[in-house]
């Protein structure tokens, strides 16, 4: 199974239930190399769940998700999809970086170790090289002097920038952001969005769940609107924000832009 060269994420017919509640309803999503896709929608619409399915932090009950042309979480066996081995899932996740709402930096290690741990453990990068790379990434997110700090000593905005550096250290093909600014004090939102904007301009493929409409308008190549577990509309930001088609999109934009 080979994907066309620019096809990075290909999700088709995704269905997921939490008990009796259907949270994803026949969702199709395609992300091409270099695209910045922003997922918006009211809370409970399934955007975070969809994002977490892409790196298999959530299982799906129907449909298939391929990253770089490889199924994630499941493998084909006699025409049916069966759960993949844990080691295979772990290997595939290395190409999909994730930034969490609550940062989730490893509390027991320094910032430098947070960033260099995965490359040295999983990619076999020699430790001095992994650390040099970590320092370069820290400089890139504007925190060159925080290498020896512990996460608890940093502000929320600083922690989130370190979390971005940590995800980048694995040189992933795509970065997933799960409401990266929702847990931040208002004055720290800007510094994180600035780093994300830089990444977008550098050509990084990104899928972002956010309520920051200003950011979506400026940085997104495509905005995807979800409601009740379905994708109801998707368009480039200039189209979507000026001429939304779906009534629910209009209601959503009216609520947040006011």
């Amino acid at each position: 199974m080979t994907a066309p060269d620019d096809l990075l994420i290909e999700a088709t017919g995704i269905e997921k239930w939490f008990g009796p509640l259907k949270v994803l309803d026949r969702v199709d999503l395609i992300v091409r190399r270099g695209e910045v896709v922003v997922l918006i929608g009211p809370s409970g619409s399934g955007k975070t769940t969809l994002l977490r399915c892409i790196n298999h932090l959530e299982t799906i009950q129907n449909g298939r998700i391929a990253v770089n042309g490889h199924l994630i979480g499941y493998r084909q066996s006699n025409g049916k999809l069966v759960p993949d081995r844990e080691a295979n899932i772990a290997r595939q996740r290395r190409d999909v970086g994730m930034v969490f709402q609550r940062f989730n930096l490893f509390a027991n290690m320094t910032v430098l170790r947070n960033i260099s741990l995965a490359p040295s453990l999983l990619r076999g990068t020699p430790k001095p090289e992994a650390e040099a790379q970590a320092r370069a990434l820290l400089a890139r997110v504007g925190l060159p002097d925080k290498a020896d700090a512990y996460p608890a000593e940093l502000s929320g905005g600083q922690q989130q920038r370190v979390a971005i550096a940590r995800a980048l250290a694995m040189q992933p093909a795509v970065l997933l952001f799960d409401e990266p600014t929702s847990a931040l004090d208002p004055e720290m939102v800007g510094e994180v969005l600035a780093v994300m904007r830089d990444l977008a301009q550098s050509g990084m493929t990104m899928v972002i769940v956010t309520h920051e409409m200003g950011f979506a308008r400026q940085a997104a190549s495509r905005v995807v609107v979800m409601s009740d577990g379905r994708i109801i509309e998707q368009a480039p930001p200039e189209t979507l924000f000026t001429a939304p088609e779906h009534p629910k999109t209009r209601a959503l934009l009216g609520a947040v832009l006011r």
Partner: protein
Amino acid sequence: MNFDWSYFWAQLLTPSGAFLTGLGLTVFMAVSAQILGSLLGLLIAFARLSPRAPLKYAAASYIWIIRGTPLLVQIVFIYTALAAANILRFNDITIGPVTFPGNVQAGILALAINEAAYMAEIFRAGISAVDKGQSEAAKALGMPPILMLRHVVLPQALRIILLPIGNQFNIMLKNTTLVSVIGVSEMLLVTETINSATFRTFELYSVLGLYFLLLTSLWNLFMAWAERRLALTRKTPRALALEPAH
């Protein structure tokens, strides 16, 4: 009161060779049983936390049976009852100049099996107490479960369970006295032997108590040091230095 002070001081300050050997055996058994019991307990904790039902229930049954029966009964069961039923006999093992008696092997095994049940529950509590976001972040980076436990979850769990582990080894030191029932010449049995010849019961048991108090006190000092050290990594020394003086 009839207390022979000179006999007491002599036993306390210049204990017999047999008593010192008993002291060494007490420490040796406690340390080996604690290490074995902790390793076994960690495996049982993983089984107990596993989503696979057979593993989970096997671990739960182990904990249920071991915690539900007296340690003294377990010691006699493993050494005497298994041999009586021709199931398992502990023979002395001699390696070079060192002989490792069968009853010491059985004693360490019984203490370790018992300890594992308690350690399993402590490990389970510690692992469950680590924020789920930590393991999710490790997973998202592509770490397989073993590496995630080794580098992220266990170091954080260990800090949480440091105090209960300290408690367990304190209890372990004292529980070694139970192994005297299968004839292991640890401190209690040596004391009993001397007592049967001298009948200085009050003096001898006072000395025995003080030696245990010495062992547990040394352990307390070690734990206080470990606690300070582990708490320090939460903050860098630099950050502590920057904190305002009190």
